[in-house]
């Protein structure tokens, strides 16, 4: 294999979208997207979840094909039918999840699948010397002093991310897609990554940079392209724009949906008291109170520690310090089953993986957390379970046909309702809803919110978490903002707008 030098060409690195549309069945993920990404610049791509951002990336990476429209790369019209086509056209993607093999050396990872060979005594063997020489060249070329012979597992996450980019660059792409490369990095590692991006920009590589961190945009990007509901909204120069302009473009005139009037919460005696809770590397010194009938929202980006906080309070993960009191009783270090007995329920964020047992019937899943109360003397039967199943199916409007069929046959929204129903069967006094609206359609989302409001008016206290900040503003009575594992602010949703909340989530309170 030969490693060609970058060609020098006027159209090199130019990327054009002309009326690109992508439909998934009736859903339009990307609509008539037209934009010219100028060569040699760092283009930030911004948009909230479901805006069509990832569809755009998938089209560029050759994972899916556009329904109509043209993508032109380096001045040539392209129609990618596989990731390999995108590769050949000079587009390389660095995905959010690392794709390195931890046990293999840095050099081996860079040349994985195309190891250089030499002939020794008639046998074709791997040219380790040549491989590491070339890997070292590549690494030092990028200004990195990483030993090509050490295993990737010995590197920090930041260094691994950098190796991933070096690997991508070893293909000499003219366009590099970076999908949230900093999401797992500490700030020092981010600096190192940015130095590498600067270097690539100086060489004329066009980069599409996806991130949720506003501060990074102003540090590293040249322009910012905003996409919303599948439509191209606009592109701004970073030198002349402001964060609030970008947030405004991302969310548009976000209309507040109807919600029942907020109740006055009697904030005298807390139901759940959390004090100084810490789990090293996940969240630090978190304290808050939750009152009867209150819906407490927790806002924060992915990785801000919100899910980890809830898991730890529920007893699913160990805590390092701090205390938890539920209805006045100390529950610090309790197991999930003790927490359940004390009246706490938790619907996890990834219902498919850990919320449900997919191979079991809907009915079994609905009864899974309340086998104790359902069974009499350890004995159980469908007859005894039936009221528990029927009640939740009716109350939550679960569309499941036959509850004896595996829960995997239900739609996402209905599966989410089964997870909620499973916990409502335990008659909890406190519920944690972690991303209950993720991956469910609009109607099911409304129904789920209605359930939460309904139960709150009956006295159920809940914590509500969503990546969609509009939803947190709509659903919650009070909002805690988490940033890098710390609670940085407490806000009143009636006196906060989206831009302020978004700013708090991204920058923390101090900035």
């Amino acid at each position, binding site marked *: 294999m030969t490693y060609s030098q970058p060609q020098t060409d006027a159209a090199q690195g130019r990327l054009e979208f002309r009326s690109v549309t992508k439909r998934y069945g009736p859903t339009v993920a990307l609509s008539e997207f037209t934009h010219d990404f100028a060569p040699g610049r760092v283009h930030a791509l911004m948009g909230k979840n479901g805006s069509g951002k990832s569809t755009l990336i998938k089209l560029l990476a050759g994972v899916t094909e556009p329904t109509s429209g043209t993508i032109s790369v380096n001045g040539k019209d392209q129609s990618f039918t596989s990731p390999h086509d995108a590769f050949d056209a000079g587009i390389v993607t660095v995905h959010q999840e690392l794709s390195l093999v931890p046990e293999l050396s840095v050099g081996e990872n860079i040349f994985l699948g195309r190891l250089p060979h030499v002939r020794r005594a008639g046998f074709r063997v791997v040219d380790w010397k040549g491989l590491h020489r070339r890997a070292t060249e590549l690494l030092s070329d990028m200004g990195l002093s990483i030993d090509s012979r050490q295993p990737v597992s010995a590197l920090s996450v930041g260094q691994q991310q950098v190796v991933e980019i070096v690997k991508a660059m070893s293909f000499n792409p003219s366009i590099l897609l970076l999908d949230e490369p900093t999401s797992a990095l500490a700030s020092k590692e981010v600096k190192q990554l940015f130095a590498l991006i600067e270097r690539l920009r100086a060489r004329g590589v066009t980069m599409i940079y996806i991130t949720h961190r506003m501060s990074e945009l102003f540090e590293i990007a040249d322009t910012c392209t905003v996409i919303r509901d599948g439509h191209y909204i606009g592109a701004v120069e970073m030198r002349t724009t402001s964060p609030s302009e970008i947030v405004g473009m991302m969310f548009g005139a976000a209309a507040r949906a109807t919600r029942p009037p907020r109740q006055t919460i009697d904030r005298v005696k807390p139901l759940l008291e959390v004090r100084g809770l810490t789990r090293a590397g996940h969240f630090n010194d978190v304290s808050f109170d939750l009152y009867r009938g209150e819906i407490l929202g927790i806002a924060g980006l992915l990785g801000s520690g919100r899910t980890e906080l809830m898991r730890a309070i529920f007893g699913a993960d160990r805590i390092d310090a701090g205390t938890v009191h539920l209805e006045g009783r100390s529950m610090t270090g309790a197991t999930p089953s003790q927490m359940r007995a004390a009246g706490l329920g938790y619907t996890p964020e990834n219902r498919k993986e850990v919320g449900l*047992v997919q191979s079991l019937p809907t009915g079994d899943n609905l009864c899974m957390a309340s086998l104790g109360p359902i069974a009499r003397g350890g004995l159980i*039967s469908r007859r005894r379970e039936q009221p528990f199943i029927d009640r939740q199916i009716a109350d939550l409007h679960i569309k499941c046909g036959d509850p004896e069929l595996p829960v995997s046959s239900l739609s996402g929204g209905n599966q989410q309702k089964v997870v909620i129903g499973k916990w409502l069967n335990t008659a909890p006094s406190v519920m944690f809803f972690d991303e209950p609206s993720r991956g469910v359609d609009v109607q099911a989302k409304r129904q789920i919110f209605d359930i939460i409001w309904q139960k709150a008016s009956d006295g159920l206290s809940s914590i509500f978490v969503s990546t969609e900040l509009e939803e947190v503003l709509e659903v919650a009575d009070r909002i805690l903002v988490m940033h890098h594992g710390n609670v940085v602010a407490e806000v009143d949703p009636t006196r906060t707008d989206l831009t302020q909340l978004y700013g708090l989530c991204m920058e923390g309170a101090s900035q």
Partner: protein
Amino acid sequence: MTLVSQSAEDRGQNVSLRLIKTYPMEIILAALVLFLILMAPGFASTANILNVLRTVAMLGIIAFGMTAVIISGEIDLSVGAGVALAGCIVAWFADAYTDAIGGWSAVILGFAVALTVGFSLGYLTGRFRQWFNVPTFITTLALFAALRGVANLITGGFPLSTFPAGFDFLGGGYLFGIPFPVYIFALTFAGMHFLMKYTSFGREVYAVGGNMEAARLSGIDIWKVKALTLGLTGALTAISGTLIASQIGAGTGTTATGMELDVIAAVIIGGTSLFGGKGRIWGTLIGVLFLGCISNGMTLMNVSEYWQYVVRGGIILGAVLLNQVLERVR
């Protein structure tokens, strides 16, 4: 396709197709029995059928427990060695204590010890998985080797056969014309079927095997569930081991060599998924009957022992393939 537009013939075809999809192993077992009745000399005789049931019983008692273990997402490779150990413990107690406390008391004491040892080893295997993250495959592989050694250490390498008079009834006797172990086998079947279907513990076994984390987050004590299924299987192994020692009239360290493979094979033939979460006690019943019939039938038809091994291997693979194909069709 709507029901109205179906002709009677179509419907008939659909019914038979559904039968094949729902009861594949039952149908294959029925076909096998029919074939053996016609082709294997002496298969259909009462004596032979009782003989098959007696062999099947020893295997099946353990296989029902193993079904629960595999549904919970674990495995136990030590049951063959466990059978030998239980037999040797009972034989050693009979040998050492008959003079002091009488033959039957010694046997009962030995059985109680064997039962406790069997349950504890299984239970601890489960806890080992929890405490040290040692897969049950490894722990029971170690036990597979070690328990046979212990069994031989107990007996000093020679068969111990000082049993009280009438002890041979347990494994070799008949009650109302049916071998005694068959009653234990039937009781175990009924008990395990009930446990898995009509108790909250059974539900928890399925949940733990189907999705460990989901079960844990539902407040189920997953490690207790796993440890108890393994302990239960250990206890059933001790029961089967005592019956076998009674049948052959001695406790020896070489009894039941390779039995773990037959037990696991029966469970798999019965449609239980090695990935956990799926399986039925009823299926395992079919699996043990199938294995019992096929090896008895081949012996009657003078198929060489070596070919019998090959056929058994083919059956295990075939049953799994059949289940995978049916899974896709369903």
